[in-house]
């Protein structure tokens, strides 16, 4: 069991002929993901890796291949358009890897997707992996191992760090999801926690937050009121100076709000065990699972 992606996922890759798109398409195929189509406007009719058809439009790709999920590598200035195209073509789940999409583009896109009921992960995220069956993302596959702990994070590489620690301790993962570090993203912590809570294949959840915004605080509220499964957390940016944008557009402590200390306090008050350093995420999960 898992959430969002599994053996029924039929993946479409938008931007499959770009450098990142083609490298990671190969990696996903190698992992066993059913990559059924690619889309690059102007290159319709050709093939990727000699067998995966490339289409000019998402609707043609969906009609011909039955794709139900799309991963997007399209450059930032065209990415919002690519997301809208996927949503209008009945793709149920969109994973946007692209970083640097203008925030107001995402504001428009998000409101439109909400009205269509399309699920969006990202942008500026590493994607989703359900080991060992399906990878829809750019994460290094080898660090993952199947199991019963769900992982959700606003960061990319810090998620890899946490997952590698879990795997090294023999703790497998049900599904790992990076929701992205931008101020406006598709699904948020609460959406994902809800899915993990209802997933029979997940026993516990690791939540990796960072400074900025208040999604960790919202997650804490949800955990306190509605979650029965144990949650372990880490919040990055405890030593970050205020009013500085730390790479992720979302990671800025603005005018004293969204500090790591606030978030840790809220999570702990909701019964979440918070790892004190990023090197102890795995060990903290082990301690919680061992009771």
């Amino acid at each position: 069991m898992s959430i969002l992606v599994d053996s029924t996922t039929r993946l479409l890759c938008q931007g499959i002929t770009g450098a990142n798109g083609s490298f990671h398409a190969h990696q996903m195929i190698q992992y066993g993901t059913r990559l059924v189509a690619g889309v690059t406007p102007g290159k319709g009719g050709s093939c990727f890796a000699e067998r995966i058809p490339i289409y000019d439009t998402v609707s043609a790709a969906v009609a011909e291949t039955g794709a139900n999920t799309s991963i997007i590598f399209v450059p930032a200035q065209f990415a919002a358009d690519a997301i809208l195209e996927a949503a209008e073509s009945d793709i149920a789940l969109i994973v946007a890897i692209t970083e640097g999409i203008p925030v107001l583009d995402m504001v428009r896109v998000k409101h439109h997707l909400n009205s269509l009921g399309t699920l969006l992960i990202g942008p500026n995220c590493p994607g989703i992996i359900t080991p060992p069956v399906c990878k829809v993302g750019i994460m290094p596959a080898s660090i993952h191992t199947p199991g019963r702990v769900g992982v959700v994070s606003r960061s990319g590489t810090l998620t890899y760090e946490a997952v590698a620690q879990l795997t090294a301790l023999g703790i497998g993962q049900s599904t790992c999801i990076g929701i992205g570090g931008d101020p406006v993203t598709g699904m948020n912590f609460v959406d994902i926690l809800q899915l993990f809570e209802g997933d029979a294949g997940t026993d516990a959840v690791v939540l990796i937050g960072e400074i900025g915004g208040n999604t960790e605080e919202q997650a804490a509220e949800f955990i306190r009121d509605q979650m029965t499964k144990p949650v372990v957390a880490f919040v990055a940016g405890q030593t970050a100076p205020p009013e500085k944008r730390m790479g992720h557009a979302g990671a800025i402590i603005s005018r004293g709000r969204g500090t790591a200390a606030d978030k840790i306090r809220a999570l702990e008050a909701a019964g979440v065990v918070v790892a004190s350093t990023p090197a102890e995420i795995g060990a903290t999960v082990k301690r919680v699972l061992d009771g």
Partner: protein
Amino acid sequence: MKIHEYQAKKLFRKHGIEVPRGIPAFSVEDAAKAAHSLGGDTFVVKAQIHAGGRGKAGGIKVAHSVEEVRRLASQLLDHPLVTHQTTAQGRIVRRLYIEEGVRITRELYLAILLDRELSCPVMVASPEGGTDIEEVARTHPEQIFREVIHPLIGLAEYQCRRMALALGLRDRLLGQAVALMKALYGLFWGLDCSLVEINPLVVTASDSLLALDAKINFDSNALTRHSELLELRDLDEQEPQENEAGKYQLNYIKLEGSIGCMVNGAGLAMATMDIISHYGGQPANFLDVGGNANRERVAAAFKIITADPAVKAIFVNIFGGIVRCDMLAQGVVEAVREVGLTVPLVVRLDGTQVERGKQILTESGLNMIVADSMADGARRAVQAAG
């Protein structure tokens, strides 16, 4: 991206938002000339820095003669201004804005910004303007009004009217306020702003609305479609290393410590700073090489770190995903060959192509400490920095 008040006011004027007459000045002589050509008997001399709280910090002064403008200008120009939003060293004032004095009857607050929770723009206003709005929000939350703007509809006129009336703007001021709010939203949306703020928005003695201050922040991700705005950047407002990093699309922020950090991914970069602090060290910088890093950018990043005299040790912490360890290792090796290495270098590699990356480092024969985990690397870097 931030811009100065005088630049923001020029954009306001272009979008039909009334501002006092004013002239930017880059020298004492400029300032005197500006006052002379503005005329009248009251001038405001305003320090132009990218930080708020200028008024309280003495960066905004009223003068009643050209001579007084000259005197105030010489006190402000080339001197640091310390506000609650700057560091303790403050910011050197290099530009001034000389404005005509305005007789005012009321000071209001008006802003449009992004509400992350709702993923919508929101218009925020208060009848308590001209002061620290955070303070008003804390002490008189009932004096803060909000209108959530549906992004697919835009700011509706009835919302503007409701806001104007809440601010007590009636009669002929009501129509003016609606027009001003719509113009401000047009600017916010049209130029991809993350914040537009008028504090204070004033009612003048002749009963009209005027933006006495102006603040605009732009979404850096959207600057590719507003290339004309790039001219408004003031590189003096950033650390030189930050400007250099910007050229290579690196996310670099100068910090106070002694351990130079090069990391991929913002979350891991922040976590790296956290763990360095945990082991008793202090990071000299935040540096995320980003998902689009190539050898050239990695080399540039490395040079920026080594050029910082405060750096006593370097910690490279990479968990390859979209960034490949072999590419990164090559970039580091090339940079070290070019600029040399005078401080200890600790490298931790993991993830995509890690074996090949480690092999490149080993074969390079460079003197470095290879760490096998993030904690191990941070500990060794702290030790090495002394």
